[in-house]
């Protein structure tokens, strides 16, 4: 396939092929970083994954086809790195569930032993108007930040990024049942938080009504 040596050394000597790779970081670094940041827990890890992505991309540069944009191609590599990471972590942490909010805690927070609501779910006033308020979104972001990280990631990927459940499972390295549980709890907690901090708070969008 490549009788005269590795494609790497070819690239190294041909300036016009090698130079784009020097610019990758400037052109795509932040986009890749943000992509990773939404999917992994910490910053350094996201940075490492970006670095690994560039290095892997350089190694397989000859497999890049012009049909895809450079960024799409880099993200596809990054995506595999993220999936690998979650898979490795899942193997390592098998049996160690995230301790932040246990299923029982969420259940007991809203439902009695028989599975009925502890407190009635009350309506939200002028929910649609809330969307127009900048302040509502900062409350929303705060609430999202207060979720256990694994719930927040599931919610972000599914609802905000709009991925299909199967894609979210792949990205997070969890099975469908696990994702379902996370999304369920994320939504209940988020609902409660928005209710407390926005819909039922004194920062009600229509304070003059009272």
């Amino acid at each position, binding site marked *: 396939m490549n009788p*005269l*040596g*590795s494609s*790497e*050394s070819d690239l*190294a*000597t041909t300036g016009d092929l*090698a130079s784009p*790779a020097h610019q*990758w*970081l400037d052109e795509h*670094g*932040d986009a890749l*970083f*943000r992509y990773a*940041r*939404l999917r992994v827990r910490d*910053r*350094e890890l996201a*940075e490492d994954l*970006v*670095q690994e992505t*560039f*290095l892997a991309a*350089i*190694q397989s540069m000859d497999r890049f086809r012009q049909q895809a944009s450079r960024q799409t191609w880099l993200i596809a590599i990054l995506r595999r790195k993220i999936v690998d990471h979650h898979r490795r972590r899942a193997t390592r942490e098998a049996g160690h569930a995230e301790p932040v909010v246990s299923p029982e805690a969420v*259940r007991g927070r*809203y*439902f009695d032993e028989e*599975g*009925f*609501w502890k407190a*009635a*779910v*009350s*309506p*939200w006033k002028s*929910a*649609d108007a*809330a*969307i127009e308020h*900048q302040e509502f*979104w900062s409350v*929303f*972001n705060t609430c*999202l930040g207060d979720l256990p990280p694994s719930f927040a990631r599931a*919610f972000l990927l*599914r*609802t*905000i*990024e*709009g991925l299909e*459940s199967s894609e979210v499972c792949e990205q997070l390295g969890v099975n469908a049942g696990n994702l*379902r549980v996370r*999304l*369920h709890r994320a*939504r209940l907690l*988020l*609902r409660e938080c*928005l209710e407390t901090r926005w819909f039922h708070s004194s920062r009600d969008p229509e304070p003059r009504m009272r």
Partner: protein
Amino acid sequence: MTGLRSLARILTIRCEPVSDLISHQLDERLGVTDRLALEGHLIVCKSCRQLREQLRWLHDAAGRGASMSVLAPRSEETLSLEARERIQASIRESLEPRPDPSGDGGPPR
């Protein structure tokens, strides 16, 4: 038997599993038994009707927030300077025309 079990589920489902179905319905199509159980329960349970309305709203609002990009958490975040330098150095290193000691091109590290 399975028919009876389905019927029992439809007739006896409580708010907690219903809240799971309400959430799940935002992601997937529910099976017949689940759908009947959910809809039957919603007829008699005001809190769960309220919940469905709110979770649907939440789902749509979050999607709209994303498209208005008011909800792009950490979107302003960028690679730190240190990370940038480190990554640039590693890219440069891997592109460097290394002298070819073995004479056969050598495998990638």
